[in-house]
């Protein structure tokens, strides 16, 4: 694969990895809130904030997965002679 398409493919891999990282972030957020709730330490406003963050993480993971797929396709197309 020529250098430029390969570079695009590397971006695609990083984006895919970041999409997974965002999903992990959502899991951590969920656990942070659950732990605070269980310990009776969660401020009243926290649930709403975490809910918003969770939704955003999910949307961001979807966006990044989509971008990774598009970048992969772009790399393959650009590599064709």
């Amino acid at each position, binding site marked *: 694969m020529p*250098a*430029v*398409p390969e*570079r*695009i493919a590397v*971006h695609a891999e*990083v*984006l895919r990895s*970041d*999409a997974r*990282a*965002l999903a*992990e*972030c959502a899991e*951590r*957020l969920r656990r*942070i809130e659950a*732990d*605070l709730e269980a*310990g*009776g*330490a969660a*401020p009243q*406003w*926290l649930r709403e*904030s*975490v809910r*918003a*963050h969770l*939704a*955003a*993480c999910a*949307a*961001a993971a*979807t*966006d*990044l997965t*989509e*971008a990774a*797929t*598009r*970048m992969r*396709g*772009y790399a*393959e*197309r*650009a590599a*064709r002679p």
Partner: protein
Amino acid sequence: MNEEIGPEPPFRRHAHVNGPVNGPVDGPVDGPVNGPVNGPVDGSMSGETEFTPPPPRPGSVNGSPQEETGSARWSPRHDPQDGAGREKAERAARSLRAAARELVDVGVAIHEAAAHATAALTDGATLGALPRAPLAGCLAQRSLLRAVTNGKGLGYAPTGGRLGALAAKLGAMAGAESLAVRVLATSLRLRVAAVTLDHPELADDPMLSRLVEAAAADRDLEAVRALRALLRDRGAVRTLSGLAPVFGEVLALRALLDENPLNDAAAWLIATGKGYASADPIIGMSNRAVAVLDTGEGAARPVDLTAAEAARLGTQGSLLGFLRNISAVGTTGRALVQSVEGPDGVVRHVVQAPGMRTGRPDNDSPQDLLGAFSSAVLDSSPYSRALARAVEAYGPPPGAELALIGHSAGGAAIMNLAQDAEFCARYTVTHAVAVGSPVDFKRPADPRTWVASVTNQHDIIPTLDGQGAGNCFDLHPDWYVVDYFDSTHLFPLCHSIEHYIANIADDLPDARDRIDGRLTPYRGPVVRSQAYLLSDRAPRAEASAT
């Protein structure tokens, strides 16, 4: 872990954040603290014990780095009936800080993802290949653009690189926020919530809580109104004093969420605990740009203390003795160097550095306002360089062991001295004790230097580096950090050396004993004292002669 300290203490240790602080004290702590002054204080070398070469560092006075380290928070005594409630609040505060810390990791991970997407979007290769696959390329570009601008996902998140930074600044000016910033804001709010458990007055006071809530919710107009109301009702001193425990967090919240792109980096540093706030979090003026105005190689001239001042100097080395010496020397542009003969017969030296000198903000003293600022912000300042000149003039032999003690700006200056590799190659800095100083991001050049930091949570000065009572980071697992508060909430009273001395003498016996235990090699008779008048640079005639 909850323990009582001392008989009927007005304070109670209520949280161990980073490790034990009540292990065995490794040295005598019951020697005289401040006796009558008998020893020579005139700077003469007479009576000075012959120096012996310092022992190899591993066997030196520092002992194991695992001993006498960690952080402790003290709070005022609660109603004894309220023990269970207090323990619950302590647990909750610990949980909130841990959660705030973890949210920082989440925020940073999200920020990195945004940076990667921005890098892909702005990479020349991505654009350069468009002629080869225009449709696929356009679709890829569009998906990347959506990823870094989707308000329901990463938010407005371009970051990194020239284009990314420019886009981020434009976005900030338009009030656009990223998901990473929103997560960090949640982390800061959890830090405020943790501090509020220690300082219920923050929640009980409707004016203070209104301001904190408005700042956290990015309600600019309401925050300004709340601040004005506070200032009108309490005055600047009481307002600052009340806000002090959450000062850094409130400023960082405002800076993260406001439309000023200049203060974003400083807010990010405060929120993530990654470094000293690089700019003031209000308008974003670069701290370094201000600090570099404080120039000078530093100079020190030996001066005699007045008889009254000399009479106040301690004759025995101890933490309180050194701090009382700093009080005796005062904020007069001077510093003190003493030699003490330790229990092992070895003579060691103690540099004692007072806080800011009153007067014009920028005069010829490195202890002026600008000097205090540069000492806090920069790694080296005219103040620390002047202290190095003072030590040089005092004349300890190469390798001699030194303890550095400083209050306020003096604490920042002695930490700068401790992180001066050249100075530490010449002398052995065994201890650095900073009281009421912003030193969170200082790092001694020699990792074996034992560092202690004592701060009152209502003292704003130590929070000027962005980290205060709400700090959720384990910045110094190898330091001994005492972060406490008492019933005196008024700044600048709680910042004064006299107030710290009174707290350490009467209210913090455990901390005092621990630090004194570590200072055991310096706990002997004072055999020499010399004061130095410090200046930014050597007088012209003297400079040209050298």
